[in-house]
């Protein structure tokens, strides 16, 4: 899940305008072959991506049900009024936003720290990179089961805490700690991914910049502030956006570990959409939730465009 959602956001900035070299008059046969080669991907993308996206906007205003003998009827904004009156929806939205607000700085800083630690010439650095990356190739389903076990009241984490004299909470059973538990675990799983992205950003910074800074007497911290950080701006924006969108898509962990509980304290927008659209088969209502989600994602990526444009102007 991580790779695909993160990857999707990657391109928002790159835009379609790519300078084409010698642009030539297309001959008819080449046009036909071109469309023929595009056709399989094109048909699939239209059928399974563009139409469903379009359907979100239509279904949200209907009473469509997943399995129903009667055709869907247009019901105006009724789904939305019902949604905005629903306390669980607001709870889920707040949880999702809190999850994003906490995990975005936490995970990106942790990932940057890891990247800095392995961006050195040192024996064994490959080993550390591999270990930090292991959770990324482990599926979120497995990670969720594993951490669910570790989070048990008498589980591994509390046993370790007891060793240092701390009485651990019932992590997933207490509404005050459940969301925090999910955040810690999700950051553990995904931060190796962003470590690699930070690392590729770090390696675009020319080494002579560090040499010049060090000749000027800059210490490690000053080098970080004046050389490293400015050189990572693009990477930082990309990472913030991808973590934010992944955070808003939060589902697997919740479905496996908490089912949204206790007391809706871990319910999320996607979890609610699945519950209503799949379990309760209310497709129209779920589409309304998806539409709200879609608007949030759109806002986040517009923000990304705005931030990148800002940077281009400065240059």
């Amino acid at each position, binding site marked *: 899940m991580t*790779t*695909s959602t993160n*990857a*999707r956001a*990657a*391109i*928002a900035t790159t835009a*379609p305008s790519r300078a084409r*070299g010698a642009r030539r008059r*297309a001959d008819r046969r*080449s046009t036909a*072959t*071109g*469309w023929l*080669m*595009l056709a399989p991907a*094109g048909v*699939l*993308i239209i059928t*399974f*991506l563009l139409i469903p996206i379009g*359907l*979100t906007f239509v279904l949200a205003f209907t009473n469509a049900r997943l399995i129903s003998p009667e055709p869907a009827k247009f019901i105006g904004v009724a789904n939305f009024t019902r949604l905005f009156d629903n306390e669980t929806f607001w709870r889920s939205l707040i949880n999702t936003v809190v999850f994003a607000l906490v995990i975005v700085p936490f995970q990106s800083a942790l990932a940057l720290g890891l990247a800095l*630690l392995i961006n*050195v010439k040192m024996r*064994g*650095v490959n080993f550390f990179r591999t*270990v930090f*990356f*292991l*959770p990324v190739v482990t*599926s*979120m*389903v*497995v990670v969720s*089961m*594993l951490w669910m*076990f570790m989070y048990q009241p*008498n*589980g591994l984490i509390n*046993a370790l805490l*007891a060793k240092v004299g701390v009485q651990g909470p019932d992590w997933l059973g207490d509404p005050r700690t459940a969301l925090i538990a999910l955040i810690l675990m999700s950051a553990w799983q995904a931060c190796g991914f962003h470590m*690699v*992205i930070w*690392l590729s950003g*770090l*390696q675009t910074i020319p*080494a002579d910049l560090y040499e010049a800074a060090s000749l000027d007497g800059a210490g*490690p911290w000053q*080098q970080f502030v004046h050389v490293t950080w400015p050189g990572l701006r693009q990477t930082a924006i990309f990472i913030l956006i991808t973590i934010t969108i*992944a955070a808003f*898509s939060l589902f697997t962990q919740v479905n496996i570990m908490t089912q949204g509980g206790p007391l809706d304290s871990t319910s999320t927008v996607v979890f609610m*959409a699945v519950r209503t*659209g*799949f379990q309760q088969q209310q497709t129209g209502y*779920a*589409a309304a939730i998806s539409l709200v989600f*879609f608007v949030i994602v*759109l806002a986040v*990526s517009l923000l990304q465009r705005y931030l990148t444009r800002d940077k281009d102007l400065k240059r």
Partner: protein
Amino acid sequence: MTATISHVADQSTKTGGELPGSHKHRVRSALGLLLRLGLSLVFGLPLVFMIVSSFKPDLQIFDDLGSLNAFLPVGTLNLENYLGVFDRVPFVTFLLNSVFISVSTVAFGLVVNSMAAFALSRMYFRGQKVVLGVILATLIVPFETMALPLLWWVNTIPYFDGSQGWLDTYAVQIVPFVANAFSIYLFYQYFDSIPKELDEAAKVDGAGWFRIYRSIIMPLAGPAVATVAILTFLPAWNAYLWPLMVVQSEELRPAMVGIDYFKQLNVSWGQIMAYASIITVPVLVMFIAFQRAFINSIASSGVKG
């Protein structure tokens, strides 16, 4: 596009004019090593715990929690948990389903997406730019936003045999994920970096576009193929939300969704750890064997064009 992760000059030896042999330098590198080791424990130990516990009876797992034994293969070790897994669920079926679904998604995906990218990158025809623009625009839409409308849609459209709806088939777990905008983009970027003179030369020799694609460009696209294969395989293997919704029959269920069986009646953590280990270890082994390709493919997802 294939951003390679190499190790650039050591910044720590250049800082603050410390000489490599000095006392301060040695203290600092010792601290750095400790920090790295500590973090490796944080990221590695939970997985060690999972694998080690899969060989222990439940009673012993809990007995060992308070000590280092939790991470060590000590005490009663046996394959009971694994046998229990096979008893409890049709495990072989689940695993073969996962393999079949992921491999098909990757194989079809490589062909379909590279062909589309080839047309967009190396040929010239009208409407090309619009197509590319639309494909790139869809990249920001996370699957989760359209999962529910897509569920309704695949339940509405006719299946190959004319019956209504795709639910509960292999096809519904594969076909929607074959064409992938990000894969097209990665191939597109890579193809653009291959000199166009090659096509010209081939055309002089009488090769058609399909021939150029198959015999010239694809053989040169190894790194892009590896990247796309990895970035397609992982989400396909790990798919959870989608199969959870579209598959009802046991014989079509992939391994990730199968884990839900273990949360029902009398939970055995040892069995859960065994199940989790068998569906994880093959991927971990693949990762360790093809590390460079894995890491480079992730790195390339962050590279901007």
